[in-house]
């Protein structure tokens, strides 16, 4: 089946619309926002885009999807690799058949053309700043994260820790989950993994509140976590006294900020991940000469879509914009 | 008296076999009809048609002279037709009272009236001489007791028509007498009764009328008063059944020596005995005397509480059936359905199971086939062929399969627990002959039987058990019904 002509970029040749694919790493609300961006771009530049979610969030499932897309002969793929380091070989194979870029999570060693997104480590440091603002005099902190085996999770967590402890900028550092961590007046008591289950996140938070009554702040790094933490703190009747810092833009998180129960959240811009990825792919596919195509790439192959801190100060404006973009 | 239940022109076929062909059958109120026939003649199938388990392919069932169609057993039950199945069908996780009233619980709204059921359970079981606590779990009852419970269940239903499919096959004489007395009472009360048995003595004793089936067809009937043994056999078999006169053979060396054996059911009683090559030894006793336990402990099916078992002078060093079989033991167990057969497997697979391994690691299908053909021929097993699923054979034929697989194992000592349970008269005589023949060749046989007649005709010597201990031993010339009974009830 040598019908995957994307490698030579001859998209317009067949006469039909360009066919692009957007592949994410697991089912999550985060990606539904990206899907809106994808659709917006598809309308803007008039291409067909399909959207793919590995239902169990497994590397193996993502691999199947990518293989099948090659068979399908799509003109370009934007993927958020589930395990960048070890998927390099696979990604390099894809490059032979189609145009490939990464988004959200990069695979720098691979031959992908570009990366659209931000650095999770940087976002983590941003999150750390929020914690510092909540606990200016230091304090005890518990971090909750879905799983620790994903690059984005590791980066975020390390960013928070490094920022709190005032360490140097080093995205490759890794502190083990069970290690006792302290520095700069802050103490990270433990990191809980919550396995995509809000119920477990709530239980872990409750147990931490029992175990460390003097805890100062919870940090929830996955989208479903800040709301679950909020529920746990509420059930212990310690709202306001125990600080909460979050990640991503779950409705309940934003409401928590409005209500003053959550200090702030760090949001990426999934809408733009989706939109910019598709626009970039469409642009690349319209040019069949590799030389000229290279000129269309963003500088350093990195299209930066920075994260933002959302606090009581800017939550209204952000939320309104989000609602408008996603039509919620 | 009026005909209550009848079938007209019933035909019922299963894949590969026509079980019933144009059969007529009727039973009146206050009448006991005995149904007889060889194994696989179609008796159980006919009764299942009457009780709504099977629907006939052709023909009709009439109740009070009106055609009826039973879609499921519950329909027949509701019309007052109760069937005691040949094979035990009990929910053993229930209590005695629970099992007794299953499907017809005494209720107050949705709730159980447990106390009333326990009281009534005691009455019904007492009537049959089954003396057990109504709160005891069914799984802790011995098979004979479970059979009495099945009978009690049918009595409890106060049925108009009571069908009993070999109710006495695992009962001893005492319980049988009692049951027959109850049947008499029911007859007097106007119940229509169908009674199936291979024990022709019972048939003669109880039947008002005898109906015979042969190969799924009616093959004669006669009044109970005319039912001589020979006539019954002629109706069933259509030929002479000769019982060869046997020559007691000279016993050889000790094949089986049991010393200080105590079972887990009766750990306090130690038992000693020996069986010689060429000897056929029977174990008699009342229901629950511990006979089955002795055989099972011997064979290693259950752990032994104490004691040594020697086969041909060598003590069994390991426990478990594997070691016992390796040493030359073989056991035909009491409960063929659960312990004797792998019901979903074919006849051939079952027959060859214990001996396959001797032919090497690879499956030897030719051996399997030969063995099965030989068994089918020798024991007269009625089957569509070696590839019939064992579970679809008639009860008696299943029993023959269990026998066949162990006869093929060529053991030093053959242990048999109720060896001819449910086997028809003709086949039983043949099995007895075969056992004698094998004993003549040096096989040692130790068997348990609840049937007095089988002990008397088959055994060279009898051990009698009473409540877990060996109450006595009777040589060939001391063997008599009276002597056995005296020891069995413990009055020495």
């Amino acid at each position: 089946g040598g019908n995957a002509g994307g490698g030579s970029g001859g998209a317009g040749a067949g006469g039909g619309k360009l066919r692009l694919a957007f592949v994410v790493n697991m089912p999550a609300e985060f990606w539904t926002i990206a899907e809106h961006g994808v659709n917006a771009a598809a309308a803007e530049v008039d291409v067909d885009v399909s959207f793919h979610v590995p239902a169990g969030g497994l590397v193996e499932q993502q691999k199947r999807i990518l293989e099948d897309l090659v068979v399908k002969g799509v003109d370009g793929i934007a993927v958020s690799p589930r395990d960048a380091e070890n998927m390099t070989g696979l990604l390099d194979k894809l490059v032979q058949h189609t145009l490939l870029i990464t988004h959200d999570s990069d695979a720098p060693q691979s031959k992908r053309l570009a990366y659209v997104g931000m650095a999770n480590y940087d976002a983590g440091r941003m999150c750390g700043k929020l914690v510092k603002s909540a606990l200016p005099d230091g304090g005890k902190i518990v971090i909750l994260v879905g799983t620790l085996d994903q690059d984005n999770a590791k980066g975020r967590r390390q960013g928070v820790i490094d920022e709190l402890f005032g360490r140097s900028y080093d995205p490759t550092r890794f502190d083990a989950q069970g290690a006792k961590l302290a520095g700069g007046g802050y103490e990270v008591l433990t990191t809980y993994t919550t396995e995509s289950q809000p119920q477990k996140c709530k239980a872990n938070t409750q147990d931490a509140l029992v175990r460390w009554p003097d805890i100062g702040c919870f940090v929830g790094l996955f989208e479903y976590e800040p709301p679950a933490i909020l529920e746990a703190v509420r059930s212990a009747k310690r709202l306001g006294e125990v600080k909460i810092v979050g990640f991503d833009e779950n409705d309940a998180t934003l409401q928590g900020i409005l209500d003053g129960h959550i200090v702030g959240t760090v949001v990426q811009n999934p809408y733009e991940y989706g939109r910019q990825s598709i626009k970039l792919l469409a642009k690349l596919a319209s040019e069949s000469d590799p030389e000229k195509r290279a000129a269309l790439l963003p500088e350093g192959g990195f299209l930066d879509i920075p994260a933002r801190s959302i606090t009581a100060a800017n939550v209204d404006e952000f939320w309104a914009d989000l609602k408008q973009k996603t039509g919620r | 008296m009026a005909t209550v239940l009848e079938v007209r022109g019933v035909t019922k076929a299963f894949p590969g076999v026509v079980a019933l062909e144009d059969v007529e059958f009727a039973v009146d109120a206050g009448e006991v009809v005995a149904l007889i026939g060889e194994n696989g003649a179609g008796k159980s199938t006919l009764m299942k048609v009457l009780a709504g388990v099977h629907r006939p392919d052709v023909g009709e069932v009439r109740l009070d002279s009106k055609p009826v169609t039973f879609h499921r057993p519950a329909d027949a039950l509701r019309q007052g037709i109760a069937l005691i199945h040949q094979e035990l069908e009990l929910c053993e996780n229930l209590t005695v009272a629970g099992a007794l009233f299953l499907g017809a619980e005494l209720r107050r709204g949705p709730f159980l009236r447990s106390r009333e059921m326990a009281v009534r359970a005691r009455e019904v079981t007492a009537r049959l001489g089954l003396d057990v606590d109504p709160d005891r779990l069914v799984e802790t009852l011995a098979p004979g007791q479970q059979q009495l419970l099945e009978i009690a269940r049918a009595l409890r239903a106060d049925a108009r028509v009571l069908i009993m499919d070999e109710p006495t096959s695992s009962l001893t004489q005492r319980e049988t007498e009692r049951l027959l007395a109850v049947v008499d009472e029911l007859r007097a009360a106007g119940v229509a009764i169908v009674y199936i048995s291979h024990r022709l003595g019972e048939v003669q004793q109880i039947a008002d009328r005898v109906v015979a089936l042969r190969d799924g067809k009616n093959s004669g009937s006669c009044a109970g008063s005319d039912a001589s043994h020979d006539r019954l056999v002629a109706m069933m078999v259509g030929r002479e059944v000769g019982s060869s006169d046997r020559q007691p053979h000279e016993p050889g060396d000790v094949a089986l020596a049991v010393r200080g054996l105590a079972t887990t059911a009766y750990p306090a009683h130690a038992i000693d005995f020996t069986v010689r090559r060429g000897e056929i030894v029977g174990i008699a006793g009342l229901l629950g005397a511990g006979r089955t336990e002795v055989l099972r402990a011997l064979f290693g099916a259950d752990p032994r509480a104490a004691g040594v078992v020697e086969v041909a002078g060598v003590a069994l060093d390991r426990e478990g059936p594997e070691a016992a079989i390796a040493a030359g033991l073989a056991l035909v167990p009491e409960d063929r359905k659960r312990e004797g057969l792998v019901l979903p497997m074919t006849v051939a697979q079952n027959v060859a199971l214990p001996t396959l391994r001797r032919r090497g690691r690879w499956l030897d299908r030719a051996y399997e086939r030969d063995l099965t053909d030989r068994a089918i021929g020798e024991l007269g097993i009625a089957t569509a062929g070696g590839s019939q699923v064992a579970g679809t054979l008639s009860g008696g034929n299943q029993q023959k399969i269990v026998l066949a697989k162990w006869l093929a194992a060529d053991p030093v000592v053959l242990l048999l627990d109720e060896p001819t349970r449910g086997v028809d008269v003709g086949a039983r005589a043949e099995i007895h002959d075969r056992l004698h023949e094998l004993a003549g060749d040096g096989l040692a046989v130790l068997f348990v039987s609840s049937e007095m007649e089988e002990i008397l005709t088959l055994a060279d010597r009898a051990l009698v058990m009473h409540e877990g201990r060996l109450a006595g031993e009777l040589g060939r010339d001391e063997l008599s019904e009276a002597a056995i009974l005296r020891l069995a009830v413990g009055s020495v």
Partner: protein
Amino acid sequence: MKKILGLSLLIFVIALVTSLLTIDDAGRSLFLSGLNLENLATRVGLFGVLSLAAAFVIVTGGIDLSIGSVVCVAGCMLPWTLRDLGLPGVLGLLFVLAVTGLIGLFHGLLVVRLRLQPFVVTLCGLLLYRGVMRALAGDQSVGFRGTGEDLRWLATGRLPLFEGFGLPVPLLVLGLVGGFTAVLWHRTVAGRQLFALGHNLEAARLAGVPTGRLTILAYVMCSLLAGLGGCLFVLDVNSAQAASFGNFYELYAIAGAVLGGTALRGGEGQVLGIVLGASLMQLLSNAINLVADSNQLEFAIVGAVILIGAAVDEGLRRYLARRG
């Protein structure tokens, strides 16, 4: 009975050890603090309902793998009925329970009328319901947005018993469900017949038991209780994501039932044992959170403790059997 004894003993030992290990500077045990006991009791209530759900079907000799997905259905539907349909709390709850009950009816009919294997039917259910909910919710998380406040009491309420400890309402719910189940199983005709058919379907049928209707009833009860559990879960955490909500809960549910002495071959089960089985898993994870440095080894420890517990239980049983 012995199962319950062994399980209680195991739970007692773990609770004792945890109590001792969590004594703080003031000499009070964190584990025994009112707050922690309330938290733990809530979780036992939530997961206990699911284990009872699983047991209903296991008792018939079947299995229900779709429990987690039915939890997902209820968890996503409840906020939706309240928020978008605008139903008042109680009506919304009843509506969701009716839907999950229908799911159970569907399972029961497939198992009884079409004689499909329960494993296949409910495995397909596992895939189907979650898949449909994901499509309906479009992978967005579904929250109450302020509705359902009247119902939240069911999951987060406390009945103040004494200073510092209120009885969590979910435990009360479990008590009611458990009491109802115990009465149904052991005091009614239907329960007696349910256990009978679980042990020997053919024998029960021959005795005139309406095996089909009862089996269907069991599947309905199972999905209904799973639905109730799902409602409680979502009320507890306030929002649900179709892709992950209730994921894997069928295993927890079945595990609780089996640990509590429910035999997978059918015909055996006791409410108390099942509740204890469900409690054991919650207790372990609570203990790990209170004692360990991180919860990385949580699953490993839960697995090891249950295995050792089962082995010791069996060893003890045999020792006792040999002695008496």
